[in-house]
């Protein structure tokens, strides 16, 4: 099990959220559904790899790279 931040995962990769930064933006992400225990998938990235669009709860939400960095995820052992 590897713990990385969500901005580093690759397209179509599904990961589970393990932790969330506690600053205000982190809290806001939590309220948007990025909550520890949930799995998220990187659906697509904009040109230059930023912003990135994640699927969570059947919704696609775009985050900037530095926002995705606040989300700690674990990649399922492949």
């Amino acid at each position: 099990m590897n713990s990385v931040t969500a901005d580093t995962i690759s397209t179509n990769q599904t990961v589970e959220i393990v932790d969330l930064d506690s600053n205000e933006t982190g809290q806001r992400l939590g309220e948007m559904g990025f909550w520890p225990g949930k799995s998220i998938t990187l659906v697509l990235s904009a040109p230059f790899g930023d912003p990135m669009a994640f699927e969570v709860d059947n919704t696609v939400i775009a985050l900037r790279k530095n926002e995705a960095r606040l989300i700690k995820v674990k990649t399922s052992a492949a």
Partner: protein
Amino acid sequence: MAKSDSSPLIALTGVPNVGKTTLFNRLTGLNQKVGNYPGVTVDKVIGRMKTSTGSVDILDLPGTYNLYPRSEDERVVFRVLSGLEPGIDVAAVLTIADMSNPERSLFLVTQLVDMGYPTALVLNMEDQAKREGLEINKILLQRLLGIPVFTASADKGVGVDQIKKAIEENGFSQGRKVVDPAEFCDESLLLKVSGITKQSNPYQALQVLKFRDEEEQIPKDIRERLSELVDEYNFKPDQVQRRETKIRYNHVREILAKCLKSPEKKRAGLTRKLDGILLHPVFGFGIFLAILFLVFQAIFSWAEGPMDYIDSSFAFLSHWFSEFLPSGALTDLLTEGIIPGLGGIVIFVPQIALLFAFLSLLEGTGYMARAVFITDRVMRPFGLNGRSVVPLISGFACAIPGIMAARTISNRRDRLITIFVTPFMSCSARLPVYIVLVGLLFPESDSTFFNAKGSAFFGLYLLGILAALVSAAGMKVIMKNERSGTLVLELPRYRIPQLRTVLTTMYEKSRTFVFEAGKIILAISVILWVLASYGPGDSMEEAASTVALPEVKTEQAMEEYRSQVSSKEIQASYAGIVGKWVEPVIEPLGYDWKIGIALICSFAAREVFVSTVATIYSIGADSEDIQTLQELLSEETRDDTGEPTFTKATVWSLLVFYAFAMQCMSTIAIVKRETKSWKWPTIQTVYMTALAYVASLLVYQMLS
């Protein structure tokens, strides 16, 4: 008490992209009133729904995911529902969720219930949920939440009658509370808070306590008292907030586990495929630019006809009144001041309506969020974000709809920067000015592909873009203390846009412009008209009498005579006096006082420069003919030195001036309306004029 005052107020809430505004329009029709909330730029939209016994007022609150006041939209919702908005007394809350995606909506619902409001939930987009094979046990959901639940497909009008009936019969109920605020802090603390800020509900009191510093509506002394309480009880808002969020999330998950049956197969397949094309890392950008190009082509070409028609209609109206009414100062005020002033407002309506029709279409399909997504990164170094692209590019047609479109930017700083720099984009009103002046620079026709005229035009457009980006970057540095924005943007599923929504948007935006910015525009145009048509004492009559009446009264001679009289008159008017008065200031830019008159008059709108110049240099009624105008201008000499007025240096200096200066009262009026203060339009006008002055000065001094 009048019936209109006693209508109960129902607040309409919901997360973004669930069809809230569609339902609002269905419930209230065009029976809507737009007002202001103090201190924020969000519009307060209230609609009236007729019932069998009277009426109900419905307040369309902005779409938010929760009741935490972080963006302006959220602040408004927070304020209204926490009882902090004076004059708004919410009787019940109707909240709307996307039935095909209930996870997103229920968080907000749990908060509304805890706020203590009688609530009802509408599960909208039932048709889509069915298509996707998603089932919700409505009765169980109703029981678990403790509030009535309706299903609807508001865009097709399905289920709307039932909702209307529920509103009529006051079919709301207080739900089952989810969070007990006493779990987070001492009950006596909440009681003390309620004592200070008059919240009757403990969760409202907790919310006010948590966000006391976000809310400027709370008076400073009360905020200080709340902060003292926070210290006294060692209250930790961050921790409370996190625990609360967690409890709500778990609660929503439990409810959904019981009532929701999701289909096995993955949903939103079509959206995924379309995104694969429209958001392609390489072609996505090209598609975006192509769509924008089409939109602006359409605005330019489709708006032209109606604009010409409006122009000639108002000219006809002026003419008709001047024939019909007895001549006199009042008639002149009407035919030369007020009617052209009104015409100058209405003329913008085709462009505004068309741009918003397209924006509403793009929004309705779900593409707008994608446009923001692919352009966000590119705009960021300039203190702008993906949402700034549409306003800025709209600025090429006209800054006014562009500035109105900046409303979609939720971050205050980014929005202000966008509004601030949009007028730098070369709008269509600059074109006539550029055409005349560039024609003076390069009189000989030249049909090669890279000709001088074309390059000059390109350069002027580039200059505008450059000024916009550099100013934006500068403002980003100055405003670094403002909260910088986050993106966190939902990419909704693609949908078929609703014609009804498109039409309502066109109507609402045009109406807002005409009635709100229109007042200011009319006032300024009347002032400018007075300046140009009156002079001190009988100076204008004297000036006019210096022109000798032609001996042989041929048509042509009389025409000549009349145009010379107009020329003498405007020179003797207050505008002429102001022109002479500013001459020392504009002399270093290469302008004489006659150009000064044109600068003052074209403050109304840039294109007025052309007609004013035509009047001043007595070019007469055929001044519409640009060729003639250019020929005559190039022969013009200065009164003082006898040298040509329009030298290369002067013309370049004028071009640069018009590229930068805020010569458009309508823009000032709309910036005032959109920022809800005179501060921003004033700073903007001073900045743009100063930049124009310095740049023109440099250009003239280098070239002369």
